[in-house]
């Protein structure tokens, strides 16, 4: 009987541990090409853990450079209300519409990366642990369409003109949408950081307004290889927005649930 037991143990050991010697997986270099990655971070002035997420994105931005485009949407349910002492209210109706359109977030910090659904997650808002990996994954992909931005700003009447050019690399079938929005960086105001209320926190990449529909304008023109589609938008920048820190972000994406994936994005400063 003891012999049987030993044989059984040996067989189990071989099956389980026979291949204990593990080959290390090669780690690739950070691959930054022509693909830009859009990160839409869901945040709020009273969200205690969100600044950790923002810091992680700032670090990634420093490393990746202009290929990483971050938009901070102040619409985290239950956490987005400003304090009585706050100078600004970063919430906007369009921002809330946009946040709801992307999906449901049930933890914070949360951000969508190119609005991708990453199984087994069931919503595009992803936990911080996987942001860097997904961003890097997308950076290595070639964009199927080019997005180019031109802006001009008149400091006298504060008119901002935006021209977006879309240049597909191949024929793109199905519905595609274009979203154009304005962000403002480095706004100093109250923010909850863990348990503390910080009065002079620098809010990054704050979504200010959306020039298209929040869900994106459906592109009626066929997206065929070598075609060039141009869209123009105009707005008057409110006086309390510091144009030096404002950016225009444009991106082309799918727009029907569950596929809202962003194909390519572009960002440019309002002042050059």
């Amino acid at each position, binding site marked *: 009987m003891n012999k049987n037991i030993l044989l059984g*143990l040996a067989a189990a050991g071989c099956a389980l541990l026979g291949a204990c010697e593990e080959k290390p997986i090669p780690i690739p270099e950070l691959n930054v090409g022509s693909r830009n990655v859009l990160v839409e971070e869901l945040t709020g002035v009273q969200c205690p853990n969100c600044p950790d997420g923002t810091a992680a994105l700032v670090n990634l931005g420093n490393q990746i450079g202009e290929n990483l485009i971050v938009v901070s949407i102040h619409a985290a349910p239950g956490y987005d209300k400003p304090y009585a002492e706050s100078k600004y209210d970063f919430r906007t109706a369009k921002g809330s519409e946009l946040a709801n359109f992307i999906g449901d977030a049930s933890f914070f910090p949360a951000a969508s990366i190119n609005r991708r659904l990453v199984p087994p997650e069931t919503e595009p808002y992803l936990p911080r642990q996987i942001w860097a990996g997904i961003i890097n994954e997308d950076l290595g992909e070639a964009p199927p369409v080019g997005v180019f931005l031109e802006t001009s700003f008149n400091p006298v009447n504060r008119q901002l003109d935006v021209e977006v050019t879309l240049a597909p690399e191949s024929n793109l079938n199905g519905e595609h949408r274009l979203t154009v929005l304005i962000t403002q960086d480095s706004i100093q105001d109250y923010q909850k950081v863990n348990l503390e209320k910080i009065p002079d926190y620098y809010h990054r990449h704050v979504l200010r307004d959306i020039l298209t529909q929040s869900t994106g304008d459906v592109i009626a023109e066929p997206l065929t290889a070598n075609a060039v589609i141009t869209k123009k938008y105009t707005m008057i920048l409110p006086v309390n927005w510091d144009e030096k820190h404002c950016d225009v972000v444009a991106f082309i994406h799918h727009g029907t649930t569950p596929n809202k994936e962003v194909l390519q994005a572009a960002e440019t400063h309002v002042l050059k």
Partner: protein
Amino acid sequence: MKKHLLHTFTLSFICLVQLTAQENGGRISGNLQSNGNFFITDEKIGATGTPQYDNQKFGAESWLALNYSNWGFDMGIRFDMFNNSNLLNPTGSFTDEGIGRWYIHKEIHKFDLSGGYLYDQIGSGIIFRAYEERALMIDNALLGVKVGYKFNDRWKIKAFTGRQKRQFNTYGSIIRGGSLEGFVKLDTVKNISIAPGFGAVARTLDEESVNRVVNEIATYAPQDSTGAQYNTYAMTLYNTLHIGNFSWYVEGAYKTKDVIYNEFEEKVTGGLGKLVNTDGYTAYTSFTYGGGGLGITLEGKYTKNFRFRTDPFQIGVQGQINFLPPMARQNTFRLPARFSPNTQELGEKGFQLDARYAINKKLSVGLNVSDIYLLDNTSLYREIAPEVTFKYKRKWQLLAGLQVLQYNIAVYQGKDDYVHTVTPYAEWLYKFTPRKSLRVEAQYLNTEDEFGSWAFALVELGMAPHWLIYVSDMYKIQHADKENFPVEKTKFDGLHYPTLGIVYTFRANRFSLAYVKQVEGINCAGGICRYEPTFHGVRLQLSSSF
């Protein structure tokens, strides 16, 4: 295709049950558990800001299981349903329904064969435990096959392979493992025996997880960069020694290099949290003695880097392959249970002593001591709780205790520093008649930390065998010098959290309806905890076995 197969299986199962119900020999059993929550917004206590409070107003969960045994086969199927449920994520909403479990089991001579969604564990679960804990939304059944073989009455071996369940899906990683367990009677007269065991589990990451791991690591600075591999192996050796009234369990486990997420490690580029590739180990022992009115359990545990998940990106209660035994008791009274420790997979050491002594038939005393540290000797949790129980004939019974607690809320909940509490508590049970009883609870949690002190009282009238009516209130004691504290600490001052409920029991069926106001806190089971947000609303619960 998968759904189609499941529906075919369900239909076949129902047909089989119908067919064989007409014959003798078959045995059908089952159970139903349903929860319904009506959410009522109350901004004062923070019952707001979730989809249920803002829009949905109602959330429900239900599990209906049916088991059938015949011809040496055991089989079962379970329907799970979640409608706008906050069980998966306390601040989110989850809706889905489907077959939550099915299984088939058959014993053929010395072989034991199972397939489907399987619950099982090796040893105390340190390297593998597939189990269900509905209150925490843990259901990490293994979808796979298991083969067992009994050499004789004393020795058995098992092997299994599969993928871990995730709601109505599975994780990509493959888990496989096995164990050999025995029982040897060394001395029949002196009642000495040993029950040794050995187990091993391997996890192979799927391609998608590997890609995610390497893409994540590729963004790290060279100083933070770490290696990665497909396979991780965990092995455990355990034994229970019985000598008369003594019992001693010991288990030691080792895990080979594994990429795990360490939320406390800082990257050189700044920011907390990064992937590390490291091996880990854990040791657990428990010593128990029972006899002559005395019962003692002494436990100890040491853990280093023993986080074992289906992939390194799973957080909270998701994707846990193993279970590390907790080093603190599960308090049942409301206020002593307010600060419960979450098992630290990345590193902790601690011990727990639980002793009971019956002085005579009327009077018994107890003491529970728990002391847990991080590996750098930072104190995490210290609980000292003496308790006394006095029974007066069969008329009434009084239980009184005192909990002295030090709780590292910075580590467990990411806020403040330490919470120090002193909580006296008492429970008095009075029997008017053998069927009619009154139970009264009173507790006072005294602290200057977190939100400050709380008081709790409960009165419960029992009319056996059917009815139970209870009313309770948890009250936030006001700070005497409120203006000296930040608003965050005093925001619940003076608030009442009343509950009023009724329970009806008929045989194995239990219905309960309650109006509940419940403060935010931590809900734990077996050292696994999750945040429970404030609740205000009506709770309807039904459980039934047949």
